[in-house]
């Protein structure tokens, strides 16, 4: 497992060798990581890989089958009630009461956390202001669009001023503007010292996180800052480099590119091809080769690996390890 994070600040979440079994199936297998206070921790992985299970274990919804977890310094197994007072949780499906109005939803969640009436009023005002919910206060939650539902759900999760917020797929199914606005909000709040644990499918969102981890079928296979992960030897094998080739004929170019010696792998990214090539491979030779096949080549330039590249490489490597172990 790749681990390149330097620990220096205070720890918001520490997970040590987390295990969760459902019958004979191990959904989470020996997962360890630390999240520092004020970080935006991006937790990535394919569907069914154990992301939500880890969140449920950390929030006290699911008992641990093994290992231990501390949230805000409290043991989730023995102190789950105190943990719940300190955290906020927004689930994938924005757990709102659709037949209640926006204001009623906020009031209900505030009361659940036993906020004093005066504090509840103040917090609701603040949340409404922060999320721009003012015009919708008396509207039923069911009538809100996806983006506004998500803002309301986030508001409900933060009423009690938690220092740590778990957001499970907060941007799934909402429009790009709302997505952008949510991230702006997360950065602002993170600036005030709030820690975020965010799961997502979007690689561009992962790039915005200060710390990312990748879980693949129960195993954590990457953990670090986006930049430290890009420099991992597994991602950027010794003796190779990454280049971007822009061309108007990407599909045809890809077909030939894969036949050129020295190119280890190639994928299409919009109007360009990202390729992993041998270090000794000359960029001008590459251009010559493509031109020979009547392919118009724009630019060929060196490229840092994207997080998607990182996760793809790590997944391949992990699969190879698994197969080797099986053989």
């Amino acid at each position: 497992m790749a681990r390149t994070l330097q620990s220096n600040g205070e720890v918001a979440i520490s997970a040590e060798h987390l295990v969760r079994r459902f019958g004979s199936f191990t959904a989470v297998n020996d997962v360890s990581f630390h999240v520092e206070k004020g970080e935006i921790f991006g937790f990535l992985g394919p569907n069914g890989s154990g992301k939500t299970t880890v969140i449920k274990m950390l929030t006290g919804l699911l008992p641990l089958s093994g290992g231990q977890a501390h949230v805000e310094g409290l043991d989730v197994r023995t102190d789950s009630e105190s943990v719940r007072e300190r955290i906020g949780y927004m689930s994938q499906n924005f757990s709102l009461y659709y037949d209640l109005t926006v204001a009623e939803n906020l009031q209900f969640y505030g009361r659940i956390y036993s906020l004093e009436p005066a504090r509840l009023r103040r917090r609701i005002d603040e949340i409404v202001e922060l999320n721009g919910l003012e015009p919708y206060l008396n509207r039923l939650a069911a009538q809100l669009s996806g983006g506004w539902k998500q803002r309301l759900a986030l508001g409900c999760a933060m009423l009690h001023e938690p220092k740590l917020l778990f957001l499970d797929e907060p941007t799934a199914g909402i429009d790009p503007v709302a997505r952008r606005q949510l991230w702006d909000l997360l950065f602002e709040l993170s600036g005030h010292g709030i820690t975020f644990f965010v799961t997502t499918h979007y690689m561009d969102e992962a790039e915005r996180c200060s710390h990312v981890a990748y879980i693949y079928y129960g195993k954590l296979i990457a953990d670090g800052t986006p930049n430290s992960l890009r420099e991992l030897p597994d991602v950027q094998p010794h003796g190779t480099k990454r280049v971007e080739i822009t061309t108007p004929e990407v599909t045809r170019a890809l077909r030939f590119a894969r036949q050129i010696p020295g190119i280890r792998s190639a994928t299409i990214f919009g109007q360009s091809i990202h390729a992993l090539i041998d270090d000794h491979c000359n960029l001008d030779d590459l251009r010559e080769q493509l031109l020979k096949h009547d392919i118009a080549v724009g630019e060929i330039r060196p490229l840092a690996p994207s997080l998607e590249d990182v996760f793809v490489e790590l997944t391949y490597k992990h699969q190879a390890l698994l197969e080797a172990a099986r053989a």
Partner: protein
Amino acid sequence: MRNIFRGFGAVFYKEALHVRRDAGTLFFSLTMPLLQMFLLGYGVDTNIRQINTVVYNADGRRESRELIDRLKNSDTFHIFSYVQNDHDLNDLIISGKTRVGIKIPVDYSDRLLHNMSAQVLVLIDGSDSSVAGQAINVTTAIGLDESLRRVLKDRADFAVDMRPKLLFNPDSRSPNFFLPGLTAIMLLNVTTFLTAFSIVREKERGTLEQLFVTPVRPYGLLLGKLLPYLGIGFFELCLILTFMRFLFRVPIHGSVFLLALLALPYLFAALSLGILISSKANSQAEAMQLAFLPILPSVFFSGYIFPRETMPAIFKPISYMIPATYFINITRGVILRGATIKHLWTDGLALVVIGTVLLIIAARRFQNKVIMA
């Protein structure tokens, strides 16, 4: 604030809002029982009268016609038709057109006149035991009475004169019997369904999971969900009692206040049952099926329709586990027999015990299991 009812107030208030928003469901669940009440109150009469009867009178003389008149006058038999042979007599019973066939033999009058015993054949369709029972009783009684009158021609009085007197429901009115029992069944339906649905809806929506991440405690959550529906159940009870008293004219002999008081533990048990169901069901469809489960035993083993006395021994213990058993005894006790707390406190206590046990099981299931679903 570490108390085991934490979150109760918030959940209670929210639940009341749900009920107000969803007036349609509320209206439906309140009127369905009233509809049942109309069907049972107006449409069902357990007193067996006017059984279709076919007569084959092979004799045809005065004595035989008198016997037929006596059968008719009993109000139990309605002469559907007269036939002239055994085949037609059998046929009408087999076809289901008549339930009883009476054959008076050709020598009936002769034998009576010679002070010999005259036999009358009574064929009874046994497929409905209550109809058959009534037919047997009435024909035997008429036969006995006819015999006695012939033997005791000169003496007016019987040696032993049984004088049965019906207490509490002197007219044997069916609504008096059915409606108090129906009250129990209807309250069970409404409250069990409503609570089960209110929780399963939150499971489907994901809000239940959200609540479990907050500091709300299982008892706070469950009681907050339970009490608004207790209120609805109570309102339903008042509605039913009003209709029963003023529309169906069922007299209430005991104290309405006592009935209301004892309804509380019953509603509590029914609601806890609803919560237990919701801890098992993950969708509204599943909850629907599960909610029907307690209905059947409540109808059949509680004494609502079939007397508990005739129940096979193995079902007796089941009847003691059903809340409706106790509440039916309470409703019939208060409404028909004018029973007081002295007679009914054990039933009330049993309901409290059942309700508490159900709620504890449900709360434990919520603490341990639902969370993982």
